[in-house]
C-alpha cells in the first residue's frame, strides 16, 4: 500500500466516524456547529499524529502486556499539550464550547484504536500518515455533520448568515439533532455502498436491523 493510500484510507474507505463508527462521544457532542467541529477535529488530528508516531517508535520496546498503559500515557501527554496550546492560542469562545471534550480525547476510541490496530504494527512514517488521514477523516466528517446541523438550526455556515430570515430550528442544535443527522449520514453511506456493490456486480446485504424483524423489546 502506497503512502498516499495509507493517508487516504482514513478519509474515505475507513473513515473513523462514518465507517468505523469510532469516537461517537465527541462526534455527537461537538458537531453542533461547523466551527466547533473544525476545532475538535484539528485537536484530535494533532493527538492522533503525535501519539501514532511515538507509539510506532516505541512499539518494539513495549512488552505486549503493558502496552495499553504505555499508550495511554503517550496519548495523555499529547492531549495535555494540545489542551495547553489551545488555552493559549485558540479563541476563548471555542475553548469554552469544546470544554471537557478536549481532555476526553485521551479516551477517544479513534486514538487508542489506531494505536492498537495500526501504530503498534507499522513504521513511523506510515503511522504518522495513518494518524493524519484518520484525523482529517474525523475532521471532515465532523465538519460535514456540524455544517448540516448549523445550517438547519440557524441558517448559517461558520456563523455567516447564508439564508436570511431563517426561523431557528432548535431541534438540530440539541442532542436529538446530532443523532438524526448522523443517522441520515450513515444511511447515505449504506446507500452508496449498495450502489457501488451493484455497480461491481456483487450482492451487498446491509446489516439486518429492522424493527419489524426484531422483538428484543419483548424479550
Amino acid at each position, binding site marked *: 500500500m502506497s503512502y498516499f493510500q495509507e493517508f487516504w484510507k482514513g478519509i474515505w474507505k475507513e473513515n473513523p466516524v462514518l465507517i468505523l463508527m469510532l469516537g461517537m462521544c465527541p462526534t455527537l457532542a461537538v458537531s453542533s456547529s461547523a466551527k466547533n467541529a473544525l476545532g475538535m477535529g484539528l485537536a484530535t488530528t494533532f493527538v492522533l499524529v503525535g501519539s501514532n508516531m511515538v507509539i510506532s517508535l516505541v512499539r518494539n520496546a513495549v512488552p505486549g502486556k503493558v502496552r495499553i498503559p504505555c499508550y495511554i500515557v503517550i496519548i495523555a501527554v499529547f492531549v495535555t499539550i494540545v489542551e495547553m496550546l489551545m488555552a493559549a492560542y485558540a479563541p476563548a469562545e471555542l475553548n469554552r464550547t469544546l470544554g471537557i471534550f478536549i481532555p476526553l480525547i485521551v479516551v477517544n476510541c479513534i486514538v487508542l484504536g489506531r494505536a492498537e490496530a495500526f501504530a503498534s504494527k507499522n513504521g513511523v512514517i506510515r503511522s504518522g500518515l495513518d494518524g493524519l488521514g484518520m484525523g482529517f477523516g474525523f475532521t471532515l466528517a465532523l465538519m460535514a455533520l456540524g455544517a448540516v446541523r448549523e445550517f438547519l438550526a440557524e441558517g448559517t455556515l461558520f456563523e455567516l448568515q447564508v439564508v436570511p430570515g431563517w426561523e431557528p430550528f432548535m431541534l438540530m442544535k440539541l442532542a436529538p439533532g446530532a443523532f438524526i443527522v448522523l443517522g441520515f449520514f450513515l444511511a447515505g453511506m449504506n446507500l452508496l455502498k449498495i450502489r457501488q456493490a451493484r455497480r461491481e456486480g456483487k450482492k451487498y446485504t446491509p446489516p439486518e436491523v429492522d424493527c*419489524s*424483524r*426484531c*422483538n428484543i423489546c*419483548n*424479550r
Partner: protein
Amino acid sequence: MIKQLHFYGGIHPVEDKVAQSVPIVEPPILETYMVPLQQHIGAPAKAVVAKGDQVKRGQLLGEAQGFVSAPVHAPTSGVIREVTTCLGPSGAQVPALLLASDGEDAPADPMPAIDWHQASPGDLRQRISAAGIVGKGGAAFPTVVKLSPPPNKKIDTLILNGVECEPCLTADHRLMLERAADIVTGAQITARILGAKKIIIGIENNKPDAIEVMRQAGADYGIEVCSLRVRYPQGAEKQLIYAVTGRKVPSGGLPADIGCLVQNVGTAAAIADAVCLGKPLYERVTTVTGTPLVSPGNWRFRVGTTYSEAIKLAGGVKEDPIKIISGGPMMGMAVYSLDIPIIKSTSGILLLSKDELTQFAVRPCIRCGRCNDSCPMGMMPGILSVQIENQRYELAEKWHVMDCIECGCCAYTCPASRPLVQHLRRAKAEVQAARRAKAGK
C-alpha cells in the same frame, strides 16, 4: 342446578345452527366405502384382511398397533376391492381399504353383550378397546387410553360434553335429543370403569330441549345437568371443567390431575352400544351444513362414506362453495377434495360460500389487545405471533405457547386478520420437536 363459573375471555360467534331441528337420518347403503386404517391419534391400525376377502358388517378390518391406537371395523358387508391409500382431512395420505358393498349389509356375529352392572372395569375397558371407540369430539383420541388413568390419579367426576359450542354443528344436539337413554347408560358404564362418584352433563343454554331431555333421562341415576352460558369455547375441556366444577386443570397437566374426565356425549352413546349390544364403532352422526347446501341435516354415516356422497345426501349445492371444512368453523380443517372419507371423528362437514370467507393477511399486528382479551387460556397471542414470525420459538415457549388450545378466538377477533392460530400451531410443533430432541440427547 349447579352454579356455573365463567371462564375468562372467549367469543360469541354467530351460531348458525340451521340443522338443529332436522332429525338424524339413516342414509342408504352405498356401493363403495373407503375405510382409512387411521381414524385416531396414534399408530395406524394394521390390516387383517387382504384384497378380495369377503367381510361382514362389524367385522374387524384392522387391528390396533400398540397402546395408543384403535381397531377399525367394516361399515357394511362386501368385498375388499383394494388395499390402498387415501387422502385424510389433514392432507396426508393414509393407508385405507376400499370396500365394495354387496348391498346385503349382513352383520357379522356380534360380540357378546356384557351386563355392565356386574362386569369388572378391566372387561369393560377391553370391550371398549375392541370396539375401536375413539373420542368423538374431534381429536379422536382412543377412549380406552383415556379410561386408563395412572393408578395414583383418582377420578371422582365424569363430565359429559354436550356443549357443542362450535357454530353450525348440531350432531351432538340431535344425538342428545334422540338417544338420551343410551348416553346416560354410556356415562354410567364410564363412571363404573373409573370409579367416579359424580356424573355431570354440560350443555349450553341455547339448547333448552336437550337440557330438558337429558335432565329427565338422568334424573333416576343421579346425573346432574349443568346449563352453561353460550360462550365459545365453552366445550373446550379445561373451560368446561372449570365451568361445572370450579377446578382448574394445571398448566401443562391433564384433567385427571384434578380428578376429572371429560367425554363427548357421542362417545358415551358408542360405549353403550359396544357394551350392551356388542356393536363396534363403525358409524357416527355427522352434521352436513352450510349456506351453499340445498338441505342441510344430520346423518348417521357409516365410516368410509366420502364427502361427495354426504353432500349428495344433503341435496347437493346451490352455488359453488369456496371452502369445505371437516369439523366446525372454529377448529375444523379445510380440505380440498371430496374423496376424503368420513371417519370416526368427523363431527361435521361445513361448506362456506364466498362471502363467508376469512382472508388471512400477512399484515403487522397493531397491538390492539383483542386477542389478549378473548384468549380463554389467558395467553398473549399477539406478542407470541410476532415472536413466532421471527422464529423465536424458545421465547414463545417462555410465554406459554404450549398452553394454547387452538380454539381460534384470537384469530377470530384479530382486526388485522393475522393467521394467529397457524403461527401458534407452528410454534407448538417446533417446541415439541425441540423438547423431543432435548429428551433424546
